[in-house]
């Protein structure tokens, strides 16, 4: 990594925030007529967000100036010692985990909470390095049933039952384990 790319990487977050602070006022209200509701000289719904956008923009600009200033004066000091401090860190695994949480969210809406949770518990354990079926199957199955008893049967939360065929599947499962 050259000095220039390192500086660019470090300057990107504050620069993005500054840009956002400049662009966002245009998206504050859904339509211009809405602003006309507010009486003259009155503190209205736009006062607070506008003030905050200014503050965010100023802080980010200050940050940006400091990063650029420090980057031009001396090479970034870290990177090397930080990597040495942590022997094993698998960044790819972490991003796979993030992706899996989103997949879980999507699965809940599609397949319902019960089926999605069963699959997710097993999948996350596999991702975390637990591959033995003797552990995986009971953890996922018992875990799901316990979660269902606590949140669906006891707490009566309206958790998703899934779409189409899965609605019937979830309802059937609930009847099979005595929740309905």
């Amino acid at each position, binding site marked *: 990594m050259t000095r220039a790319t390192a500086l660019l990487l470090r300057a990107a977050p504050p620069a993005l925030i500054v840009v956002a602070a400049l662009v966002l006022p245009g998206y504050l209200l*859904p339509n211009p007529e809405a602003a006309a509701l507010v009486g003259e000289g009155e*503190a*209205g719904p736009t006062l607070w967000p506008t003030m905050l956008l200014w503050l965010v923009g100023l802080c980010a600009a200050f940050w940006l100036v*400091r990063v650029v200033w420090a980057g031009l004066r001396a090479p970034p000091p870290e990177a090397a010692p930080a990597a040495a401090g942590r022997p094993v860190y698998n960044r790819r*695994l*972490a991003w796979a985990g993030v992706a899996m949480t989103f997949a879980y969210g999507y699965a809940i809406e599609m397949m319902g909470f019960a089926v999605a949770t069963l699959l997710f*518990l097993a999948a*996350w354990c596999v991702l975390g390095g637990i591959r033995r079926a003797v552990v995986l199957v009971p953890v996922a199955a018992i875990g799901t049933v316990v979660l269902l008893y606590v949140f669906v049967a006891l707490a009566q939360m309206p958790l998703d039952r899934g779409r189409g065929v899965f609605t019937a599947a979830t309802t059937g499962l609930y009847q099979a384990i005595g929740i309905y």
Partner: protein
Amino acid sequence: MEVFDLIGAGFAGAFQPFNFAVLVIGLLVGVVAGALPGISFVNAMAMALPFTYLMAPTQAMAFLGGIYAGGVFGGSISSILINIPGTPASLPACWEGYPLTRKGQSRRALAIAITASATGGLVSAILLTFAAPPFAQFALRFDQPEFFAATVLGLLSVIAIAKDRPVISMLSLFIGMLIGTIGVDPMYGLPRFGFGVSEMQSGINFTVVMIGLFAIGEVVDLIAAKPDLSVRREGGGGRGLSAGDLWRIKGSIGRGTGIGCMIGMIPGAGATVGAVIAYGVEKQASGRGRDFGTGIEQGLAAPEAAKNATTGAALIPLLTLGIPGSAATAIMLAAMMLHGVSPGPLLFTGSVETVYTIFASMLLANLLMIVAAALVSRGFSTLMRTPPAILGAFIIVLSIVGAYGVRNNFFDVWVCLAFGALGYVMKRTGFPSAPLVLGVILGPLAERYFLTSLANYDNDYTIFVQRPISATILGLAALFVLWSLWPLLRALIGRQGKSRKGYT
């Protein structure tokens, strides 16, 4: 002494087997629910509401009061053991409690947290018992400008907490406050930053943000780092807490309790705001502010005392005026109203015995909490031996259930997941996430109080310094900022002096 007769009758009521059992079950449910990442005590109370249909009003209140007191504490167990706050109010417990665990002193940290919480809760329950009506009258004199001033104090303590890089911490706070403005505004009902998504009108809930940033972000980091969790149990969790140790942190507990009792009566503020202000004040007052963040016992004790001290105080406006200040007390109001009992001044003239049974139950809840909390803490310490992958999988499921349960709205789950990804990035890059969450909590309160104050006082911006109580609080806030910035200013002046010397 008529009051003592009434309290005696109250205790007799609270000790009736069924009442007592309900209280203990409530406490245990509260501590466990609070300790589970994702599930907060508000979730637990809402889920418990249907069960109170079957109970008498006093039992319903004892049950919910037990969950409330236990749940406000419970969040700190997961804060201390795995650095994931179980409820937003336990955020400060991460900052000093988790470093203690890293040092192998988890048992000691938990003991401090339990003692401080129980003390704070007990003092506020005593305040509730003996001084509820006069305190309620005092609280009524507070209007929107005073609430605004108190919120400003909370916002400023967030800045005071920032250890280093104050500009980045402020940026984080302002971004949080900006996120808090999403959704319909409090006066005109105009949707802001909607981007054409109708769900955005409901706004971004702070609990959902907290669960995403802390629980999901942390678990994702856990799976990649594969830390050996058993290291944290080195030496059996450190030595316990002696009477002498307690005496050393009495000042911190006292300050925290006082702050919690005051903040608890402000509608909308509640346990989180109390804990944050107490942490900020303690950082200045304890004299060890420079070391905060490395596992300082005073910094753990003060916010713990404060957050439980808000529980009894929050019941004062509820019971004496019928005004619920928070989500938790609104659920208690619902439970009483469903039984045809309306809290308010009439409760004190009509069914005095009911009132004193509730008082006695709250006193008892905070005493019994020590036992319940110690039991559950031990159980959770054992749970930490589970492989991180399995632990993480369940934490994510609970987080999503908890995020969904805030409003039973699936949009919140997506928000939570997005903040989970953001939380992971923030954690890796060292961008402070706590000010952001506090911004989401305090920002909407500040805006609402600010705009209503202006609407009520002819758009006069000087109203905040004209009213004596609000002016006093703002003055204190200003002093507080100067006080916390003083070391920084002195260092700046000192450095300039030195560099000038170097040149000449």
